[in-house]
């Protein structure tokens, strides 16, 4: 099985800042990968390199192609939403659909209409007259109507209401995703995507600080809710992170003995958001990265 994305020592500097600092990455097909990091961690730089939109040093192959050299060829099999609302403002909805149909060999008008059916996006409307959320709905419909091997979503649901967000992720999982495809998602709203992810990558200061499958993560990390009187005991076991909620102490452990933890209190799997906070803080004590709400 060839990797959808393969990177070795992927780097990019902006002046003195290392936006990407020697990243090694292998993403096979049939995965849904969450790329999570604080603002300015290098997420967008990495995605731009993958999409052939930015320069980079090091080796990078996407679907066996060099994105910096053959972006147009690559875009037949890759589609992306780079950010919110970047559709041309002067265009009418029907024009954009027609253009995409004529320019993209794998676009299906039928599917696009299917996804637009439940929105208020009118065919004759100009993009500039649509609300921010409606532009995103239109863009998502366009992208989901393309039969691509790699779908890159950079903050895809910013500005959308909760009903549409839920429906979008459920469509993505049930109608779009299959063994042949790979989806890479970045978002700050981690809790919304964590149940659909197969893999999780945390990035901070241009470095990957976590890169593993969700199964491995659930295997590896454990959270225990401990009563105050047991807190000292738990601290002795070298937890990654500790927080207090309603007078109870919650500890996060890496590779801990499950039976030992069960004696301390209620054991459960950590959420991605909690894991994120713990690992971002753990890596370096200063420059705390907090996931935005």
């Amino acid at each position, binding site marked *: 099985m060839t990797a959808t994305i393969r990177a070795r020592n992927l780097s990019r500097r902006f002046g003195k800042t290392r936006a990407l600092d020697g990243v090694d990455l292998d993403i096979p097909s049939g995965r849904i990968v969450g790329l999570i990091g604080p603002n300015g961690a290098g997420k967008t730089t990495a995605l731009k390199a993958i999409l052939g939109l930015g320069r980079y040093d090091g080796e990078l192959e996407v679907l066996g192609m060099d994105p910096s050299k053959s*972006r*147009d060829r690559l*875009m037949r099999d890759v589609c992306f939403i*780079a950010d919110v609302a*970047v559709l*041309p403002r002067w265009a009418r909805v029907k*024009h954009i659909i027609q*253009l995409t149909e004529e*320019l993209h060999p794998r676009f299906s008008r039928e599917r696009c209409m299917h996804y637009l059916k439940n929105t208020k996006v009118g065919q004759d409307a100009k993009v500039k007259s649509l609300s921010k959320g409606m532009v995103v709905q239109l863009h998502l419909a366009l992208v989901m109507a393309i039969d691509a091997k790699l779908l890159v979503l950079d903050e895809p649901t910013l500005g959308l209401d909760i009903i549409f967000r839920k429906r979008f992720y459920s469509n993505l999982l049930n109608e779009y995703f299959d063994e042949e495809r790979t989806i890479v998602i970045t978002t700050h709203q981690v809790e919304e995507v964590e149940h659909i992810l197969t893999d999780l990558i945390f990035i901070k200061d241009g470095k990957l600080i976590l890169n593993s499958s969700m199964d491995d993560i659930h295997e590896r990390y454990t959270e225990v809710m401990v009563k105050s009187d047991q807190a000292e005991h738990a601290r002795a076991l070298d937890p990654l992170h500790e927080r207090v909620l309603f007078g109870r102490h919650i500890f996060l452990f890496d590779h801990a003995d499950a039976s030992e933890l069960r004696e301390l209190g209620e054991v459960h799997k950590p959420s991605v958001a909690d894991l994120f906070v713990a690992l971002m803080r753990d890596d370096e004590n200063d420059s705390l990265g907090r996931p935005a709400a």
Partner: protein
Amino acid sequence: MNAQSAKTMWALLRRELWESPVAFKWTPIGIGIFLVFLTIVSLVIYTQFDHSLTSLFDTMAAFANTDSDQRSLIVTAALFSVATLFFQIMLLIILFYLSGSLYDDRKDRSILFWKSLPVSDGMTVASKILTACLLIPAMFLFAIIMTQLVLLLFASGLGLFAGVNPFTTFILPASLPRLWTIMALGLVVQALWLLPIYAWISFCSSWAPRLPILIAFGIPAGIALIQHSWSLATSFSLPGTNFGWMILQRLGGGVLPSNININFNEINDVDFNQDLFMSFGNLGRIMIDPEMWIGLVIAAVLLLGAVWFRRRASDN
């Protein structure tokens, strides 16, 4: 170009039309309506002095009796002069269009959408140049033809009242197929002649961080000014050939008749006859002019530069 690229190019050209309907569609139509309106107003004013239009009808009758070469010259010259206003506004529209063509989508970030489509950057730049060289001239030519037809019908109607045969007096001497063919070819040759200037503006548009039109005009103007002052300061004389002057000459010294009056150097030698604008020979002469080919080489280099920058362009 294979079928797929032709289809892609067609879609990209239509995109340009969708983006700028006012400049490409409504402006030429507007000029046509304006010219027809102007004709009607002139006639109405004229009737204030000459209620029964007798002197106009007399002139028409006299005109119908001149020899056919003379008639042909005057009718075609009149029809060409109708085109003048179109051509000058068209040139302005093309220059402004090109300055924004590779800049606007970088500014509003929609470049990220365009780059998500499987269209190469070379194809994108080519579509902008083809829009400037063929699409816009085609739209204007269509409006010119329509305006000329309306005015010819108008003249023919008056001719009927004047008792002259409109067909032999106006329509036949206009030799419309020849006139339109020359105009169409002239527009293409003019586009090739101006290609280095078009390419320069596209080149600036592909990298300018802001105000591409100021940069595109400012750099050559600056060079001309420096050259001018340097020459004055060092040898107390004006430079023999000035860079800015060369560019202005190329802009003004196009191949369409509307440009003759700006070509100062030759104005005295111009012999007003039909060869000036109704001959294919002129176009041929310009095509074998070495200046034309030097210009095309410069244009090619600048366009490669534009593609180079376009490939690296992103939303910031």
